[in-house]
């Protein structure tokens, strides 16, 4: 049974909170269009690598390097778009 975009988005947010160990942040708190590497969430280069691992382990999606990652890992929306386009 395929997931709706909404379900996938929430699931992704849960994974983000778990993989990055975001303390005090609930998945629902992350806005879909909030820049991940902006001042509010404050993620950095190590987190971008962790996100690449997340996408590989949870969705089978391979991103080869942080440069490639930067185009995709902008906000939750862009990642969901990428997953839907590439998920195995």
């Amino acid at each position: 049974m395929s997931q709706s975009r909404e379900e996938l988005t929430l699931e992704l947010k849960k994974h983000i909170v778990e993989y990055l160990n975001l303390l005090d942040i609930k998945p629902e708190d992350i806005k879909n269009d909030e820049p991940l590497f902006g001042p509010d969430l404050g993620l950095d280069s190590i987190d971008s690598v962790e996100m690449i691992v997340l996408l590989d382990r949870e969705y089978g999606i391979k991103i080869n390097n942080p440069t490639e990652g930067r185009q995709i890992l902008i906000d939750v929306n862009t990642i969901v778009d990428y997953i839907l386009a590439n998920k195995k």
Partner: protein
Amino acid sequence: MEKVFVTGMGVISALGNNIESNLFQLKNAKTGIGKARHFSSKYTESLNFGEVDLSNDALKLRSNLTNEEGLSRTTLLAYIAVEEAIANAQLTEEELHSFDTGFISSSTVGGMSNTDELYADANMKGKPSEYVRSYGGGEHTLQIVKRHGIRGFSTTINTACSSSANAIMLGARLIKSGRLKRVIVGGADSLAKYTVNGFNALMILSDNPCKPFDINRDGLTLGEGAGYLILEGENSCRDKVKLAEVLGYGNANDAFHPSATSDEAFGPRLAMHRALESCALKPSSVDYINAHGTGTPNNDITEQYAFNEVFEKVPPFNSTKSYTGHTLAASGSIEAIFSIFSLQNNELYPSLNCKNPIREFNIQPIAQVTPKDVNHVMSNSFGFGGNCTSLIFSKA
């Protein structure tokens, strides 16, 4: 204050098992980087390494340790280099056992090169392995202290890639303080699944042999090895051959990020400035720099930024990691030894694999073996945790 001299050196790396073979390869601009033959990992097919071309059994045989248990590869490499350094400096048994003789070592991997056994022991799977007491970073230090009957101060440092540079710095300071007359200093690290996978997880390993200072550089190549120097105070080595003087040193923290250098290279700059200030040496007197030069996008540009800031005219520089790979904790001492080769032989060795040098600062690494009157050399080591150290050696 007493001067500190280098009276002996010992090294084992991808370039060879002793001083002579390492120097030979440098003189012939021949890299030691290639496919690993002894190290076992999923990555040995796809990646290159600066491997010491001896199996653990072969290393044991060299040190007459065939029947001993619990010796990690790190320890085996360290034994060989320490042995060579002691012989090179002609240290007597009396000197070795004196309370005035110390030993300062360093390692990042330590006994963790036995990754599979560590996994089993840490998760209590099966019987304890022979390495159960050998995993710590300081365990190889214990084994060497025991082997050589060292009774003076001994310690182990871990500041990642600058570890053995800090060991050299501490050794010199202890001699100048009068607490020691002589000290064996250096470090050892062996290839391990732990570090291969760690650097791979950070995506800073290159698929190809590293290209320090090249525009197309894309990561580091891991290496292994051990390098040790014998430092002695001027008053304790009057009749000995002096290979170099430890003239100056500087240590600073970049305080920016756990695994990347700041764009303004605060740590590297400060370390170099402090090293020059420590011996009141003018930047223009530095004849050659052995750069940290790992070949990662971040390190090489920030290091050049730092050169440009510290030196009005940047001296010739290379990265010998293009020969040995990044030997982690051992890199400081191995590269100190290579720097001293230049002092002794009045020649500079080229930086390999740099076909398109970084353009931003209009400086290029040494391109071929170059004769030069070399009186002062600087050797840099910058590690995770922002740990930056710069050493200055002079002709004795």
